[in-house]
């Protein structure tokens, strides 16, 4: 176990180093420097600017500085808004994005598990068909289509939720996050529902379920104690990809709903080609995702006694 965790941590560090190096190489492979596109700057200013971003030093030295800064958690200064550091942007945006993401994950996993259970228990009956239809919609409708639709109907036409603002305090913000959270959660919700349904059907076909029913356990108890516990394990495996999907999905959702999160900064930095912000956010998100996947794997090993961490999987 300890050996396995150590191995995974090492792998995690290598992956992080790889993505940082990749961003560095990619960003420095662009001809010219970030200031070439600006209006003609005086020679003196240009020199000062380059010195500020360490662009006047030879490339290997820049790389070493960059890795050293990363190791201490310093992600650099924005090029287009020079009085802002990338760390400040992340500090501002992250609570907002994290909240949106967490809400979406909670909706997707809880509602997905419940919907999948109902569909499995009521297999081939109207309830199952309705739920599966919703799941199909969830897989076919991208969040960047659902977002505008929710905004138009629930926000503007029927005025159920306020739009394009951001409130104060937990509950003040809550009503603004409802629509974006739903838009963000819809596809993952469909995936969880489908997976939960098929895994429930698998488990329900087992002999020990029949035994539990035969010895007279109440149906609800069979469902919670015997079925749910076993059926939920495959769902945990997709939590990693799910989190990735929700985080990347938040780029477009934050753009559509103009939410001041990291995604919005990221999308803006892409269109203004603010390379230090692009680099910083990419590395931050990659690190976050890699860590998440690591924890999901650990949790998976803990809840399923059949899985022994560190053993090679067969096939």
């Amino acid at each position: 176990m300890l050996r396995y965790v150590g191995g995974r941590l090492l792998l995690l560090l290598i992956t992080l180093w790889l993505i940082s190096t990749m961003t560095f190489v990619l960003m420095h492979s662009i001809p010219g420097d970030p200031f070439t596109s600006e209006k003609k700057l005086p020679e003196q200013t240009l020199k000062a600017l380059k010195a500020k971003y360490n662009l006047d030093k030879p490339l290997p030295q820049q790389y070493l500085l960059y890795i050293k800064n990363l190791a201490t958690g310093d992600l650099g200064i924005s090029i287009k808004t020079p009085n802002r550091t990338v760390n400040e942007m992340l500090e501002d945006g992250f609570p907002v994005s994290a909240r949106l993401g967490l809400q979406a994950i909670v909706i997707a996993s809880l509602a997905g598990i419940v919907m999948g259970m109902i569909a499995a228990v009521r297999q081939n009956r109207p309830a199952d068909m309705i739920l599966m239809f919703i799941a199909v919609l969830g897989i076919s409708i991208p969040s960047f289509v659902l977002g505008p639709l929710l905004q138009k109907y629930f926000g503007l036409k029927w005025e159920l939720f306020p739009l394009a603002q951001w409130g104060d305090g937990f509950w003040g913000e809550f009503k603004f996050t409802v629509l974006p959270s739903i838009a963000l959660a819809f596809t993952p919700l469909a995936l969880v529902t489908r997976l939960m349904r098929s895994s429930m059907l698998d488990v329900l076909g087992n002999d020990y379920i029949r035994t539990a029913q035969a010895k007279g356990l109440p149906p609800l108890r069979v469902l919670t104690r015997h079925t749910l516990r076993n059926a939920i394990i495959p769902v945990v495996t997709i939590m990693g990809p799910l989190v990735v999907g929700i985080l990347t999905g938040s780029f477009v959702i934050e753009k559509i709903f103009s939410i001041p999160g990291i995604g919005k900064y990221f999308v803006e930095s892409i269109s203004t080609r603010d390379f230090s912000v692009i680099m910083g956010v990419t590395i931050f998100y990659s690190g976050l995702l890699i860590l998440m996947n690591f924890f999901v794997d650990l949790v998976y090993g803990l809840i399923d006694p059949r899985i022994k961490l560190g053993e090679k999987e067969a096939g």
Partner: protein
Amino acid sequence: MGIPAHKFQRVERKAEQYEAIRRPSVSYWQDVWRRLRSNWLGMTGLIIISLLVLMAVIGPWISDYTYYEQNLLEEKNLEPSSEHWFGTDDLGRDVFTRTWYGARISLIIGIAAAMIDLFIGVLYGGIAGYKGGRTDEVMMRIVDVLWGLPYLLVVILLLVVLEPGITTIIIALTVTGWLNMARLVRGQVLQLKNQEYVLAARTLGANTKWIMFKHLIPNTMGPILVLLTFSIPQAIFAEAFLSFLGLGVQAPIASWGTMVDDALVVILSDEWWRLFFPSFFLGLTLLGFNALGDGLRDVLDPKMRK
């Protein structure tokens, strides 16, 4: 009474007749087709995809307009009519033509990216699984490291740097896209290479290449085909997502993602057709490929065969 012996006719036993195969032999693809035909989900998907492909080919061609032709003065934001079947956008461009032109771009990108993934993945996974030992160890460690990279973030990063265009998107999508296929093929080959028929083939003097391409790969065809079908909608979605962020194909080329992005203004106005048509057909494409993938998995997965 009794039948005289000369009335009997001797039936000659012909060895070749006994050995003859009576039913027509069925190739792998005919078998897949026969199984798929009885699966309504897979067939629905296949029909949807066929219709979409057909429209992508003939759609822009049967229309009187081009995807880039603007008419700012007279034909701005027109509702769907007999002139413009899907209406026009804010630059007076015909939405019908643009939608089907976008279908071409999406399908080309999706299929090309999936094919490149297939090629690299089968080669890489096949070699790793077949060689085994140290080679496998090193090759799969590399995959493990790359596996940790978030797919869309890497693609975004590449597209920020590279020249925008269809080829660039395909390349960016395949940089980490082949990992799934490599893992699948490697696992399958690892399982299959110790089977008796592989041993038999080797005893008969078959070389590695023959065993690989005549025995191992065909036997993993089922899971490969299923994964391939699912990776096409993934690539199509990724392209639409990137175009929506402004990193995909560049104007005036139409893609479903850019059309949805352009149509965001309809939140405030009433030109529903500008958002509806590209999103509807994008959704239908994703649905079609996912249904086909589910159907194929049902009919090809040995565990599901009854």
